[in-house]
């Protein structure tokens, strides 16, 4: 279920775009699959039709969604999409980590060391 938060300062269409991308990235919505109509998603998220329309349009421009006239809106059938989206999401997290590190005075080298430690620990756990 997609949800809009008023605590989030970003415009509602950006929040919707991100959540749709995530749904596709985690495989809830598969490439080529039809997604809810603009009106159905507006009713489900309680967000105006014009806002959902804007999110869909921007995602079409990015090549994430495809609208076929009179048939509906679909996830683009590009198979790499899921991986690209996950990569973009990872980059966002890394950027956030780098920013926080700078704010609290952690050097890039130390940040990298910590990341390695965490990754190794997770690998241990997975064994």
């Amino acid at each position, binding site marked *: 279920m997609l949800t*809009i938060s008023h605590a989030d300062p970003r*415009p509602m269409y950006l929040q919707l775009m991100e959540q749709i991308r995530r749904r596709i990235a985690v495989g809830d919505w598969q490439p080529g699959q039809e997604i809810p109509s603009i*009106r159905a998603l*507006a009713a489900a998220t*309680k967000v*105006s039709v*014009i*806002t959902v329309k804007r999110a869909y349009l921007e995602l079409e421009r990015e090549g994430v969604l495809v609208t076929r006239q009179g048939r509906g809106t679909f996830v683009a059938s590009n198979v790499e999409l899921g991986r690209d989206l996950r990569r973009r999401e990872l980059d966002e997290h890394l950027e956030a980590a780098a920013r926080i590190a700078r704010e609290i005075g952690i050097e890039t080298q130390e940040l990298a060391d910590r990341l390695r430690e965490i990754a190794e620990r997770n690998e241990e756990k997975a064994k």
Partner: protein
Amino acid sequence: MTDRLLELEGVRKSYRFFTLRDIDLRLEAGQVMGLVGPNGAGKSTTIRIAMGLTAQERGSVRLLGRTMPQDQAAAKRDVAFVSDDVGLYSYATVGWHMRWVASIFPSWDARYAEALTKRLNLHEAQRVKGLSRGERVKLLLLLALARRPRVLVLDEPTAGLDPVARHEVLAELMSVIEDERRGILFSSHNTQDVEQISDCITFIDRGAIVESSDKETFLDRWRRLHLVAPTCAALPALPGVIDSRARVSSPSRP
């Protein structure tokens, strides 16, 4: 069938201390229009004129293609109005009100009414006098929605509601709009509600429309940050910042 549900053109109405003037409004099928503005700006007067409850002095009002206020009886078969002034009988029950509205409007959908009663957590045996303010609003909304009107007009539907009730009201309004032949006009001074569910926002202040446009345009233009800085100051590097400082030729210094 017309796609324009409501149209106000050049509407004027004056009172002793207040004049509503040059009101132009258009509500298309499939749209939600939010009417915003401070108290006393003219939101309720505009809505009352649109509903034919108050006659305009000048200008024209067409509701579902009918001329208002003359043809209001015909227009109102397919229009529902939710407002505090709509009377409920305090000694009658929720169920009595449902049967009463059902007897007047052939479009009444009994199954939908029953589903709404459950969703909005109302009970047919409850008397109106025992209802909270939120429950009264929900009853009015139920009575309006179960008629499945093409146009739904609401004056401050979420005023004084707790967050849960507000959420329920907004959800029911959005479910109306799944049908693209229907439309909603509502007033609110809760800008968050308006921002969330409106496709189009009309801002009224002191009896006149300040701006009426689609919401995305409205928000893009109105979320501006104005910095007053001396002409020599460098602007911070923020995304979307446009330097609009007036180019005033500075007087030559000695």
